[in-house]
């Protein structure tokens, strides 16, 4: 098991390297100027040349990449062109803000989606199943930016029950989870963010449960005289590995932040940071954020793989 863990960690290194090469290249393939943020639209060619030199963007791309990579391995992600703050600080603050959303969205999505799916799968083909499956399809199909705007119109604009935008009355630096005046800012983005994972998990769980219920061992359990509740427990446990894999992906999605949801609610998370970095062509922030998010996905998949083994002993890790 330890060898397996070490091997997986080693696998993560080339993946991170590959992601860094791809993200570095993609940023430069896109049209636009990495110094657009710091230069007015009418900057002359001469000014651009001086500033490019000052920021090191006049060097050949492979050289820029190697300089960047050399810094990254020592923990120095560089400075944001737009804000002049260390990229590490920018990315870590944004990830922490997104993690706060995920902290509430994950249990909401996983619990609701799993319960809905389990109920639908247990009553496959009946009206309960049809209602729950219909609701799940709606959840998956609703564009979350649209849902976010509708929730804002209803709960912030019309009823004035919840705030429309932002992270707390004084921003993320003063955010206090123990104060309702702060916590209320979480509700609409959390609900919006959780909606799609709820739908996906409900559908996945429903399919897994329905499939397991048709297996022979379930008939055997019933024949042995187990109560329906005990049978259901066995069914749910057997359906879990499949559900867990999807949960892992959804956890990565939630932790990675949603550009659309965070933009609609002006939530200063990783998705919001990424969208600003793209618009501004803030290359150091873009590279740092993509690298961090890719590592989040790699780590999440790794943890899910590790969890699957104790849940399903049939899966062995060598």
């Amino acid at each position, binding site marked *: 098991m330890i060898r397996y863990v070490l091997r997986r960690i080693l696998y993560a290194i080339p993946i991170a390297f590959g992601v860094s090469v791809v993200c570095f290249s993609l940023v430069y393939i896109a*049209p*636009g*100027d990495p*110094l*657009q*943020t*710091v*230069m*007015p*639209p*009418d*900057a*002359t*060619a*001469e*000014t*651009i040349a*001086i*500033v490019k030199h*000052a*920021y090191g963007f006049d060097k050949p791309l492979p050289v820029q990449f190697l300089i960047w990579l050399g810094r990254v391995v020592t923990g120095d992600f560089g*400075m944001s062109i*737009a*804000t*002049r*703050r260390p990229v590490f600080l*920018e990315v870590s*603050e944004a990830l922490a803000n997104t993690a706060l959303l995920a902290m509430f969205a994950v249990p909401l999505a996983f619990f609701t989606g799993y319960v809905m799916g389990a109920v639908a799968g247990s009553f496959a083909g009946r009206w309960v199943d049809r209602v729950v499956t219909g609701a799940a399809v709606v959840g998956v199909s609703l564009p979350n930016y649209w849902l976010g*705007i509708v929730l*804002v*119109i209803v709960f*912030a*604009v*019309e*009823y*004035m*029950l*919840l*705030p*429309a*935008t*932002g*992270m707390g*009355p*004084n*921003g*993320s*630096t*003063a955010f206090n989870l123990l104060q309702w*005046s702060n916590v*209320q800012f979480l509700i609409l983005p959390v609900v919006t963010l959780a909606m799609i994972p709820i739908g996906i998990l409900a559908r996945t769980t429903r399919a897994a449960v329905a499939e397991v219920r048709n297996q022979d061992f379930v008939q055997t359990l019933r024949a042995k005289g187990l109560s329906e509740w005990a049978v259901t427990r066995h069914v749910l446990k057997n359906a879990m590995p499949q559900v867990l894999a999807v949960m892992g992906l959804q956890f990565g999605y939630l932790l990675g932040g949603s550009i659309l949801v965070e*933009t*609609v*609610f*002006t939530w*200063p998370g990783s998705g919001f*940071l990424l969208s*600003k970095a793209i*618009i*501004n062509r803030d290359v150091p922030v873009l590279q740092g954020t993509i690298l961090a998010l890719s590592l989040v996905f790699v780590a999440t998949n790794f943890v899910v793989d590790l969890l699957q083994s104790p849940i399903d002993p049939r899966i062995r890790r060598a």
Partner: protein
Amino acid sequence: MKVAKPALLRSVFALALGAGISLAGAAAQAGGTLVVGMTAGDLPITTGNPDQGFEGYRFVGYNLYDSLALWDLSKSAADKASEIKPGLAAEWHVDEGNDKRWIFKLRTGVKWHDGCDFTAADVVWNFTHSKDPQAPEFDPGQLAQATVYLANAVHASKIDEHTVAFDTTVPDSLFPYELSYWLLISPCRAKEVKYNWTEYALRPSGTGPYRFDSAAPHQRMELVPNRDYWDKARVPKQDRLVLVPMPEASTRTAALLAGQVNWIEAPSPDAIDRLKSAGMQIVTNPYPHNWTYQLNFVNGPFTDKRVRQAANYALSRADMKELLNGLMLEGNSTLPPSTPYYGHPKIYEYDPSKAKQLLTAARCLPCKVTFAISTSGSGQMQPLPMNELVKSQMDAAGFEVKLEPMDWNALIAVAREGVDKHPQYNAINVSRQTQDPFNALIRHVWTPQWAPKGANWGHYSNPEMDKLITAIFAEFDTQKRLKLLTQLNESMNEEAVMIFVAHDVNPRALSPKVHGFVQAQSWFQDLTPVSVEP
């Protein structure tokens, strides 16, 4: 969108959340706090000349800092285009014996926010800070932001404690306008933070009417009044100014309606009726902005004046105004009509049959053209529906317009690099500020401004106009210069150097609790007279 308000549902929610819950709106409406929802995607930088376009200047630049010449944004000037007035310089004149040397007499008794005195040495220090890569105080970020406005200045020198001289490469009668965009920062504070501009950004020090108080990165910046401001008439009336970046128009509108902010920039036209019905004040005024197409004069149909004129005749600007719910002025020239040097330019009234005749005479029917446009961007108004309307009108008059949308950054790159690098485009749709004579007119048609050196994207060149521009730069008598500028604008219209479409009216929506704001005909606005009811 109107949502029904069943009383029962409202009661249930209210009960569920409890009577002690402070509603979102209440928290943001402390007495005397002006909370502005900006269109900017991020907080403007605070190290001098800001980023985030002129919105950065409007809310951060001119509030923390001053320039030697400021813009007159007062109530008395609201019915005409804004002009420059003395700022940190009390007066200025060109050297009588040398028309390439400007003398600026500085205001006395001005202090930086950090308590140091403002002197001539500070102005010279700021010059090297922005221009000289060898100086210890040099900041490449400021070179990028400020050099555009100091292009003609080669040297700054101290004459005495309160007098400075600037030497220019050529006689430049417009130099005071250029200095109006150059914001001065405190050398005391810069030295205190050892020229660490990241540190300076957190503790900026200017001479402006507001002092920096705090900022949550990317989220909000709070400024407080500078009670010792040198212009006592402009000491802010509100207790606090909070700036919140909200790039999404729907988010800004919702935040205003929910009471989280009490001022939003640029509400979308389709939200105006909803905002009005909620009692919000919608404020508009013409301002120096144009929404046009800059044309390719190197190759393609627009090298022919008749085709350029045909494109202008093809447009129904009244239809465009209707599309924008009335939130624009019909664009018939590079300048809005309230500009002092607007004159009597040739107007291209909507006449599709005349457009077709011109295209026939130019042997370009159907006349295939490709426009580079953006999906959004600073000053671009509603680029997609507006461009679609232009396309349909031009197509109906004999053109065959192909729109190539790209994001704002990519379009700026196309605009900067010029027609030589992007010959596939016959026009680019980049909105421009027309606040001063150089930016309004000269840069679009002057041969030395050919991109990538300047903003003449399509490489327009006309010896007569170049001669006129040289005369403008050399004319130091304001009235005589005004006549020359008027002549230039009229010539630009006669030549149809652009496809003129619209001028924005700078809409903003204010809570009914906001008082005292008068919108100047400028990209910049004075927030100091504004007060907010608790």
